[in-house]
């Protein structure tokens, strides 16, 4: 006599039903010699530093799709709230959407409490969301801001663990950037010194990591003021072509010329202006 057990269906949460199917499809496509499109990853060097009056966040601006640069000047420092910004490394869509979702929820929370949002709140919301998705949302974040408790900096990993530290780096260029920080970081730096340090850390990532490149964006957050410096440093200027590929008229000899006029009548002409207000 067998007892029948009924499988409980999960309500809500992520559905992993298609994962096995996707794996089989992936294998089939590979057998035919093709490859499925890769998710656009941001390669990336991002970092942050706590200094005397606040935090400085930095990021490069290269977004890669496999070995090709998809965007030479993408913005990796995302707005969370007037006093909190977040750099994102990993899957571009994931970092973009995750920061937007938390930014939206934090604004509603802020309206409910009547207070300026705290960095720790943003950290809690981000880590709880990323943990819920068990690492399938590939977002590695550097969260920084200034609130009533003071300046704070967090690094947040895709699986949902966070570290509160005075200086952090994330992304494929994080080791290069961390080397700069470990050499020159001091507590209670002045603003210019802190900006120079972050700039140099990102530069280390840009020039030593293939996944990072182009320009350096900085975001300086202090009590009551945010300087979003995009770009702060154009580290890679597009080169000037030394050759001229323009050819003078008459370079190519014309043998014959035949002109066929197309008789087109203008039947109706109407102009509709779009309401862009």
């Amino acid at each position, binding site marked *: 006599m067998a007892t029948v057990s009924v499988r409980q269906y999960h309500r809500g949460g992520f559905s992993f039903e298609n994962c096995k199917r996707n794996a089989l499809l*992936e294998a089939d496509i590979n057998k035919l010699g093709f490859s499925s499109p890769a998710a656009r990853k941001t390669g990336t060097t991002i970092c942050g530093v706590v200094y005397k009056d606040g935090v400085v966040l930095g990021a490069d601006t290269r977004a890669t799709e496999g070995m090709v640069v998809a965007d030479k000047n993408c913005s990796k420092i995302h707005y969370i709230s007037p006093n909190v910004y977040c750099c994102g490394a990993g899957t571009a869509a994931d970092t973009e959407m995750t920061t937007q979702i938390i930014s939206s929820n934090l604004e509603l929370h802020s309206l409910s409490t009547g207070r300026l949002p705290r960095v720790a709140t943003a950290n809690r919301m981000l*880590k709880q969301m990323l943990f819920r998705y068990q690492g399938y949302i590939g977002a590695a974040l550097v969260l920084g801001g200034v609130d009533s408790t003071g300046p704070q900096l967090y690094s947040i990993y895709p699986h949902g663990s966070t570290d509160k530290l005075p200086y952090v780096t994330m992304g494929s260029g994080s080791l290069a950037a961390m080397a700069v920080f470990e050499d020159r970081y001091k507590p209670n730096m002045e603003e210019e010194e802190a900006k120079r340090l972050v700039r140099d850390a990102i530069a280390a990532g840009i020039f030593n990591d293939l996944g990072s490149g182009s320009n350096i964006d900085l975001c300086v957050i202090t009590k009551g003021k945010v300087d979003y410096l995009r770009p702060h440093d154009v580290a890679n200027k597009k080169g000037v072509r030394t050759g001229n590929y323009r050819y003078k008229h008459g370079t190519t000899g014309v043998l014959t010329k035949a002109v066929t006029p197309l008789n087109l009548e203008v039947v109706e002409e109407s102009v509709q202006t779009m309401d862009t207000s």
Partner: protein
Amino acid sequence: SLQFGTPRSVFITSLIPVGTSIMAVEFEGGVVIGADSRTTTGAYIANRVTDKLTPIHERIFCCRSGSAADTQAIADAVTYQLGFHSIELDEAPLVQTAASLFREMCYRYREELMAGIIVAGWDPRRGGQVYTVPVGGMMTRQPVSVGGSGSSYIYGYVDSNYRAGMSKEECLKFTAEALTLAMERDGSSGGVVRLAVVSEQGVERQVILGNQLPKFSTV
């Protein structure tokens, strides 16, 4: 082939911080807890000054080992539950209660989690207590408990050097030395030694930096 469900091989080599040495010792009047400060993602040290001694309540701490994401999430959930329970009771919660809450979560979700936790603290009813909740979700009280990847190297040291009835200072020295030995031999453990004493008087925390660690003969 790509695995789903509980892909343990993907787990350990992917971007999740793991690896640790943690320890807790009961003494007359309280507990001494200690941990190293290293969290690694593969071969890279993501945080060299981690605080793995997490307060759950005023006089109850937990030492976290295993997946950082899992243990942080569990500790946050238990902190909430215990805080709520304490307010309901209008009393300081028991260490056993905290340990039970950890056990409930770690056992129920044992397939999804990678968490080895030592719960230690002081309550008025039973004094200093150490409960261990290893991977799998068992819960048991022990006078001294070690955990994490580095613990394997110090079972012999702990078994041979532990005596019942040690004083607070003796326990601190014992813990510091044991963790130093573990950190010396385990690649995933290192950094500084964080210690805390939890007793009726409250919590005293200290940090032993690299150059101040006890020295053993270098062979």
